[in-house]
C-alpha cells in the first residue's frame, strides 16, 4: 500500500471577506480514523475542500505522501470527499450518480455499493433532490466507503440519519476500515456517539488547528476533580482549569493537563474521573486562547 500521509503546510484561505483558514498546519497519520472536530464555522468543511483539491489555498500547500495534492491527478483521484449534501448531484438519479462514481473512482467497489444501497433501502430511480436528507447522507456514505480511496473524507456523514442508521453507519465504518485500512477523516458534531471510532482527534477553532493528538492521549489528559470547595479553592486560578461548577459545598473542576499530586488528592477524598469527549470538546471550544497555551505546555498538540 502506498504511503498517503496527508500534511497541511501552514494553509491560509480566505472566502469572501472571511479568513476561513488561518495558518493551519497538521499531519494526518496514515491508515487511521481521524475525528475532525470544532464548532460551526471553525473551518472544518473548508479544510476538507482544501485537502481534496477543490479549493486552492491562498498560501501554503497540502501534500499526500510528499506530493502536492493541487492538480495532481495521481493523488486527487485517490482522495474521496463525501459531503452530506452534494449540490451538484441534485438533478441526477441515484443510478446515474452510482454510474458516475464507478466511472471516475479507480478502485470503485460496485458490489459493495449495490449491497449498501439495498441494505439501507436507498431507491435507484428518484433524483437526488427528491431523496430525504437521511438518504442523501447515506448516498454520500456509500460513495465514501465504496470508493476504497486511500484518503476518504467524510463531512458530517450522519446528518439527517436516525439513531438506528447512525449506529449502523458506525458499525459499517469500523468493519469496512478493518478490511480496507485507509486514512479516514470524519467531521462531525455528534462526538459522544462517534468518539470510539477515532484514533486521532483534530480540533479546529477559528480557522486554525487548535490540537491534533491521539484520542486516548487527549482523553487521558483531561479529568474531573470533584471535592469540597474548600479543598479545591487553592487551584481555582490555575490555567489548566477548563470549567468549574459548584453545587452547595461541592465543586467540580474540569482539568486539562498533568496532576502533580494525584495520590495526595485521592487521599484527601477528591474524586478524579475522566471527562467524556463531548464535554471536553465543549470546554475546549469555550476557552480557546487558554487551551492553546495549556496544550502547548503539556505537549499534547
Amino acid at each position: 500500500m502506498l504511503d498517503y500521509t496527508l500534511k497541511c503546510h501552514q494553509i491560509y484561505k480566505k472566502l469572501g471577506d472571511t479568513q476561513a483558514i488561518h495558518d493551519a498546519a497538521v499531519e494526518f497519520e496514515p491508515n487511521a480514523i481521524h475525528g475532525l472536530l470544532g464548532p460551526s464555522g471553525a473551518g472544518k468543511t473548508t479544510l476538507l475542500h482544501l485537502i481534496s483539491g477543490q479549493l486552492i489555498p491562498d498560501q501554503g500547500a497540502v501534500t499526500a505522501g510528499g506530493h502536492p495534492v493541487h492538480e495532481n491527478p495521481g493523488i486527487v483521484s485517490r482522495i474521496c470527499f463525501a459531503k452530506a449534501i452534494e449540490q451538484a448531484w441534485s438533478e441526477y438519479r441515484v443510478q446515474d450518480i452510482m454510474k458516475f462514481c464507478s466511472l471516475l473512482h479507480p478502485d470503485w467497489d460496485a458490489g459493495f455499493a449495490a449491497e449498501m444501497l439495498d441494505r439501507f433501502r436507498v431507491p435507484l430511480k428518484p433524483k437526488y433532490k427528491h431523496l430525504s436528507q437521511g438518504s442523501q447522507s447515506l448516498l454520500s456514505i456509500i460513495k465514501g466507503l465504496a470508493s476504497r480511496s486511500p484518503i476518504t473524507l467524510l463531512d458530517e456523514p450522519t446528518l439527517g440519519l436516525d439513531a438506528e442508521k447512525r449506529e449502523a453507519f458506525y458499525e459499517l465504518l469500523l468493519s469496512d476500515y478493518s478490511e480496507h485500512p485507509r486514512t479516514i477523516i470524519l467531521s462531525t458534531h455528534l462526538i459522544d456517539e462517534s468518539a470510539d471510532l477515532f484514533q486521532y482527534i483534530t480540533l479546529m477553532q477559528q480557522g486554525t488547528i487548535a490540537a491534533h493528538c491521539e484520542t486516548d492521549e487527549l482523553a487521558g489528559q483531561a479529568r474531573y476533580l470533584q471535592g469540597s470547595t474548600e479543598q479545591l479553592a487553592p487551584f481555582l486560578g490555575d490555567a489548566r482549569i477548563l470549567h468549574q461548577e459548584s453545587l452547595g459545598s461541592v465543586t467540580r473542576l474540569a482539568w486539562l493537563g498533568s496532576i502533580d499530586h494525584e495520590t495526595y488528592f485521592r487521599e484527601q477524598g477528591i474524586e478524579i474521573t475522566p471527562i467524556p469527549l463531548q464535554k471536553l470538546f465543549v470546554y475546549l471550544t469555550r476557552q480557546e486562547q487558554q487551551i492553546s497555551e495549556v496544550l502547548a505546555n503539556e505537549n499534547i498538540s
Partner: protein
Amino acid sequence: MRTFRSQLAFHWHENRKRLLYFGAIVLLLDLWVLAGYGVYEPENALALVMNNNFAAISIFILLITYITGANSFPLLMGLGSTRRQYYWSSLTYFAAFSVAISLAQTMLMAALKLLLPLLGFHLDNAVISYGAMWYSQSATYFLLAMLFFLASTLMYRFGIFWGFGLIAIYVFSLEALRTSNPTLIDATARTLVDILSPHFALAASAGIALICGWLYRSAEVKTSA
C-alpha cells in the same frame, strides 16, 4: 489515458438521454416543417429543414455547455478529477459533439435530397457540397459551444451578470458586423461564420478555448449552496 476515457464516458453518459430526446424532437419538428411549410415552398424545403435544425442544435449546445460549466465541473471535481482533466475532456467532448451532430445534419440533408423528390417535392438544383457543409457546420457548432462554455464558466465563477454580459456582447457584435440582411431561410447568416469563414471560426474557437483554460486554472468549487 484510462482516466481521460472515463471522463469522456462520463460526458457521454451525462448527456445521452438528453441527446436521444433532442434527436426525436428535432426529427418531429422537421416533419412538421416539411408538411406545414415545405409543401408550399418545395424549392426551399431543404433550407427550411436546415434552418430549423440549426436553431434546435444551437439551443441544445447552449443547454449542454451550460450544464457542463455549472454542474459537471463541481461534479467531476467531487469525483477526483483535476481542473485540467475536466477542461480537456469537456473540450474534446464539445469538439466530438460538433463533428458528430454536423455529420448527422449533413447525412440528413443528403437523405432528404434523395427522398423528397420521390415524395413529389421539386427541389432547386443547387449542388450541395456535403464535405464543405459538414466542415462549416462543425466549425459553427464548435464556435457556439466555446462561446457558451465561456459564458457558463463566467457565470459559475463570477456570477450571472458576467455570463449574460458576454451573451449580450455576442449578440450586439453580430448585429454590428453582419454584412447582409439575413433571410429567414439562411441558417448560417445569423452566426459569426457568416462573417468569418469556417477556418477563422475554428481559430476564434481556439482563442476562446484558451481563455476558458486560463479561467479554469484557478477555478474553485463553490462551497455553499
